[in-house]
């Protein structure tokens, strides 16, 4: 076993990979920012005492957490045009699927975070006449959010990995370009090694940040 690696040829095509990388990052940014916000509202519904919103949110969360994201992406790819008559691009379908999927997970983080706030904080806000929305914006979210950041960061890491699945519905992100490159160059070993490293370099800082944030929170709590 003395295979000579030919990384040079892959690196010569780095513009292809770079183009894919841009789309990967775009996919991530759209899905993540959307999910952070949307997750709040689903999480509120999930934690609410109102039967109907609670039921809908619970169903939403359970459906997205108990099916493979690949199936979700494919489903949206076919379902959107069939059900709405609107033919989204593969990118739009993937962004939407990843966004909806991550929203479900973010909802659980929001719910747990908001529920961890001491009851006295809600009461104190109510006692000076705040509306529920003001309470959320001024009292609950600013306090709970910092405790939720590690969990959100972990979610971001999961999402970043998930973006690669968009390649299966022909979104030309990093993984897609890698597949193309590996067949063009006949160098799959080198291509997928390099791409794995690119993903790692991109994602690992997020994990490290989550570790650090968690440690800081724990030491603050102690």
């Amino acid at each position, binding site marked *: 076993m003395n295979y000579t690696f030919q990384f040079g040829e892959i690196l010569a095509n780095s513009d292809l990979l770079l183009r894919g990388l841009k789309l990967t990052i775009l996919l991530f940014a759209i899905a993540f920012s959307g999910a952070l916000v949307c997750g709040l509202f689903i999480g509120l519904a999930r934690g609410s005492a109102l039967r109907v919103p609670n039921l809908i949110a619970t169903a939403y969360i359970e459906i997205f957490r108990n099916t493979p994201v690949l199936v979700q992406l494919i489903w949206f790819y076919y379902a959107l045009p069939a059900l709405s008559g609107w033919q989204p691009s593969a990118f739009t379908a993937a962004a939407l699927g990843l966004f909806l999927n991550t929203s479900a997970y973010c909802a659980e983080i929001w719910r747990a975070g908001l529920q961890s706030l001491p009851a*006295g904080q809600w009461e104190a806000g109510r006692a000076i006449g705040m*509306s529920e929305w003001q309470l959320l914006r001024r009292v609950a979210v600013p306090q709970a959010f910092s405790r939720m950041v590690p969990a959100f960061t972990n979610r971001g890491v999961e999402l970043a990995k998930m973006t690669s699945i968009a390649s299966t519905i022909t979104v030309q992100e990093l993984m897609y370009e890698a597949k193309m490159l590996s067949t063009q160059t006949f160098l799959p070993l080198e291509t997928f090694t390099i791409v794995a490293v690119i993903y790692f370099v991109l994602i690992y800082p997020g994990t490290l940040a989550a570790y650090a944030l968690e440690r800081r929170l724990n030491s603050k709590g102690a």
Partner: protein
Amino acid sequence: MVDVTSASVPPVLAPPVLAVEGLHKSFGSNEVLKGIDLKVAAGERIAILGSSGSGKSTLLRCINFMETPSAGRIALDGTSIGVEGRGGAITARSGELRRLRTRVGMIFQQFNLFPHMTVLENVMEGPVTVKGMNRKEARATAQDYLKRVGLSDKAEQYPQRLSGGQQQRVAIARALAMEPEILLFDEPTSSLDPELVGEVLDVILGLSKEGRTMLLVTHELGFAYHFATRVLFLHEGRIHEQGTPDEVLKNPREERTQAFLRRFSAFHF
């Protein structure tokens, strides 16, 4: 039963600022308040006594609708809050509740300051967010109230850095900044170390000199004696005895009141 209309109760001349009529509150099958009638005139200071679980907190919390009464009526200046819904419970719109709470301030046993805001921001929060006051004016108001509770120098600190007594004084300033007509205190000194109780009670006594209407739940009988114009003794969800501090604290008529007070043999007036 007790004759609550006896002459010992201060006559109510002006229409009461607060009227509680036939107030009932149940949690599930546990009936905590079993019919409370209470009229509070402007400037009255009412100390509420009673053993743990007698419903003191629940009474205060029903007055500002932190708990929804199961039956009965709560009226401010003669206007009822909410409307009677199904099964006697009162339902009120959230807007009406918010207005009510700007008129009735509450101070908690656990202070409940907002930890992510400085002392000054805590006091400004109500005026700015709820009343829509501009920040400059709110800042001046907040500084005023902080001065009143003797904490001008702590304005830029975060609550965690303050002692319990200081935190409770900030909480009082936060409630005052809303300029409420009535103040509710739920055991404001019960979670304080003994040496910090005095500074909080001094602030509350100071407020009583301004003629504010206040309802205060406390176990500090000596303080209640000096503070109150009227003392209520609550027992199992009913007003068991009421009267002037002298009547209730020095010469209680009811056996239960006497038994309750004997447990505090060590208090001095």
